[in-house]
């Protein structure tokens, strides 16, 4: 256990705080933006945890999460514009 575990835990806590906005947000856009923030914060936590544990596989997962988050954000935007 080093300081990187603590940093990763702080990022996960911030992601949990963002979940408040996902639950509360009055419109779809608020929820989508907050969900994207949760995605990015989880990504960072995965990167830090990979460095801490010394396993490269977590970095692959982080890359895939980043790509999926971007795709879902664009899909929500296209749907709201009515062009999907």
């Amino acid at each position, binding site marked *: 256990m080093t300081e990187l575990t603590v940093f990763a835990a702080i*990022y996960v806590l911030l992601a949990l705080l*963002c979940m*408040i906005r996902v639950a509360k947000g009055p419109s779809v856009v608020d929820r989508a*933006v907050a969900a994207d*923030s949760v995605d*990015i*914060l989880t990504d960072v936590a995965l990167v830090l945890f990979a460095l801490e544990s010394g396993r490269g596989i977590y970095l692959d997962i982080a890359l895939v999460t980043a790509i999926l988050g971007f795709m879902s954000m664009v899909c929500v*935007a296209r749907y709201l514009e*009515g062009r999907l």
Partner: protein
Amino acid sequence: MILRYVSDAFVVIGIFFAFAGTVGLLRMPDAFCRMQSSTNISTLGLYGAVIGGLVKAISMIVEGYELGWTMLIKIALIGLFSILANPIGGHSIAKAAYKHGVRPEKEFVCDAYGEDEFDD
């Protein structure tokens, strides 16, 4: 050893900006301003940790772990992908929000987009 403190310093900077972005996301009054705060998370909140991770991977290479190279390349790829993809997501969601009819409770100071209304 010094590299470890440098990497920690970058990650702490990232945590500060991620915290500011989260507070902004919870406090800002309307959807567009919340987007501005979430940009705070997706730029320096992410890059602080990514640059810190790169420095940490370099320190692993210096100490002689083979794994350091894999980590270095993959973390750099994550950073590169995010810097290319995040602005596109932000731009498309902002435009979609405006066309969907999301407006702040307090009026905009000026609204040039609504004045020249056009469809494409």
